[in-house]
């Protein structure tokens, strides 16, 4: 399965934040593993049609959070200590997404349900 980021330039959420949260989500879900190499800033910016500074800011914040590290030879890679979420919780999340999609919920509606559950 290929790992993607999707940004909405009309969203109120800044593009760099959308990139940052999605990379964090991929790491938490185990789709990005420690040592995985991310695209270069320029390549990702070109693919997304955004300024390189936007992607650079997302990567900088990810680096500050310890999710990725930038090495001179290999570029930006997922940090060794960036481990995915607890296995049971990860499987439950995947099961929930499948059920929500099966029920025809939109991503926002599915997230609202999770937020509601977290309030209990």
């Amino acid at each position, binding site marked *: 399965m*290929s790992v993607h980021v*999707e940004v909405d*330039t*009309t969203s109120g959420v800044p593009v760099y934040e959308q990139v940052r949260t999605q990379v964090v989500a991929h790491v938490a879900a185990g789709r990005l593993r420690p040592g995985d190499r991310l695209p270069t800033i320029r390549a990702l910016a*070109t*693919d997304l*049609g*955004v300024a390189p500074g936007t992607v650079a800011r997302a990567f900088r914040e990810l680096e500050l959070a310890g999710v990725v590290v930038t090495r001179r030879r290999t570029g930006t890679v997922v940090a060794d200590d960036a481990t995915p979420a607890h296995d049971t919780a990860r499987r439950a999340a995947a099961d929930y997404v499948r059920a929500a999609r099966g029920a025809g919920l939109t991503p926002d509606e599915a997230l609202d349900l999770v937020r509601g559950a977290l309030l209990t």
Partner: protein
Amino acid sequence: MGLVLLVPLAVLVVLVATVVTALLPRGAGATADVETSPGAYARARRHAAVVAGLSWAALLLACLLLPEAVPFGISQGVVLACMPATAGVVALLVAAVGERTWPRPAAPVRRASLVRRTVRDVAPRPLAAVLLGWSAALPVLLVATGLSADAAGRTVTFAPDAVSTSSAGPYPGAPYGVPVVLATAVLLVATGATLHLVARRPAVPDVSTADDARLRRASARRVLACAQLVVGGTLAGVLLVTGAALQRASSTTWAVDDVWTTSTDPVAQAFGVAGLVAAAAVLLTTCVVTGVALARASRESAPATPAPVAA
């Protein structure tokens, strides 16, 4: 001269490409991907085809026009020897400009893969190996001919017997070899730069990562096909000139009191024949590889499902 050599070459390439296109299974390696918009994919294929067409047209035109522009003189042979590489650089330049003209994402919602793309991901290894093989063989051959050439570097001389010598040229000594190696090095750098652009161009909007990768591989295949044809053609040309010179210089005929004697250096003659046979083999191989590569590029990027008819 250039036209005479190019016409059968072009015919052979087109013939091989046509045959291989007919024989290969349609849609081989293609994966149906629900994320791809057939219209967007068809437009991307058209763009890639136009870029490739212009690039190959530039190669053909440069091969046809450059020899006519070379003035007669002592440097004519050197310029002609560098002509394939020069034409190749022109073709790669056109391909590079084409890679810069892919449409950039403009829709509000945009996707990008988080997998790093490198030249190794887009360049087919067998084709790259063929290019590197030709590129390694060419300087080795030119060093050998440079060492065996006369002091001036334009002829080769043998003494088949104790009383006579025989010289023949043109022979690819240092005056030919150094510019050819330099021109080939420039071509290889241009190839690498163009492949880099293929890997780094923006992802095609509304096309899945797998289909975008297929378009990139097809572009890289066409670039490598062009480069290996140029280097292989240059190698074949050098082998042809070397073999012909060795054959002519291997024999000498002389007369004493109307008694004619022909002496032959068997080693030189064997090398001459080997050079001519190798030239034909390299030319045939590079043409077949080009035809197969172009056909595979076309098949590789063929849509798994028919594209919709444009309104």
